[in-house]
């Protein structure tokens, strides 16, 4: 190691600050490779949620009455507010990526922080909702009422899927917030901000994916059998 250092006194700086990693021909190829890898990962994420969504679909079709009754006791307006928060966070995330690609460090950090705050707001609101669900006695295994129109076990199945799907999504939100906070700190510290643009864009892809998952969870969980309210 010391020998390498002697041969090239800038070896360490070159590794961390180089715009182009040595395995790539040019920056465009590096950018495309990163995007391709990220989309391959997101494909596995689709299947991660896909198993649960398949289970949901089977039971929603089979026990549609019980699922409709269960859904009616969720806080639809909290779900809608959280959808609006996540959609807005996707806008600020896209603006952060745009700023990073234009080498505007200040704006990128600014938008990354807004995105993190919106993500935290989503989780906070979700926490409030979980608490309200608990006081409503609709938490399977912990506090679950049995006086339902439909079979309590079938309604409970809806709530099991509701809690697993939303908790899995919330964990993805936490991971996304962790990644964005890390990138905010790295962007603040780095001497060459241009080296962070790719990472910010890839984190953005993950963030938008988690947003898309919620875009589907909202109608699947909160908007079942809406006609009963008509």
């Amino acid at each position, binding site marked *: 190691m010391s020998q390498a250092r002697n041969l090239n006194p800038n070896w360490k700086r070159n590794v961390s600050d180089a715009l182009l990693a040595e395995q790539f021909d040019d920056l465009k190829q590096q*950018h495309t490779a990163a995007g391709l890898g990220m989309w391959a990962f997101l494909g596995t994420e689709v299947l991660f949620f896909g198993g649960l969504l398949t289970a949901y679909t089977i039971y929603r079709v089979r026990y549609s009455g019980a699922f409709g009754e269960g859904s009616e006791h969720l806080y639809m307006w909290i779900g809608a507010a959280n959808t609006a928060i996540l959609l807005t966070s996707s*806008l600020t995330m896209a603006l952060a990526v745009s700023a990073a*690609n234009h080498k505007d460090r200040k704006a990128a950090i600014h938008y990354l922080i807004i995105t993190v705050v919106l993500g935290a707001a989503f989780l906070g609101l979700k926490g409030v909702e979980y608490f309200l669900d608990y006081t409503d006695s609709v938490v399977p295994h912990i506090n679950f009422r049995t006086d339902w129109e439909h079979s309590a076990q079938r309604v409970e199945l809806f709530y099991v899927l509701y809690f697993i799907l939303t908790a899995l999504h919330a964990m993805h939100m936490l991971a996304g917030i962790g990644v964005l906070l890390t990138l905010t700190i790295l962007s603040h510290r780095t001497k060459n901000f241009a080296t962070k643009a790719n990472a910010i864009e890839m984190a953005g892809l993950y963030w938008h994916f988690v947003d898309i998952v919620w875009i589907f969870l909202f109608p699947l969980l909160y*908007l079942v059998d809406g006609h009963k309210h008509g």
Partner: protein
Amino acid sequence: MGTNMAEGEPSRKLYWVIAGALMALLAMTVGAYYLPLGSFGAVVALSIAATKAILVALFFMHLKYEHPVTRLFSIGGLAWLTILMGLTLGDYLTRAYAG
């Protein structure tokens, strides 16, 4: 040239337009929830969700501007999900017993 891929991504103004469209679609899906659509309601809600997802993927995730191989990969997850759901539901929904 830097890592500036700005030529291959939407303008900031377009991001705001997309965000506005997403909010309008959210308002639509909440509005449709109160309409007497019956079992058709699920079709409406999921169609609106799919439209939102496509807007996010095409513009916020730059898929519209990406390399064709990346776009192919982006459909990969959905292709496998279709197989997963198609074969599973093809079994469950065609069984003789119900409940």
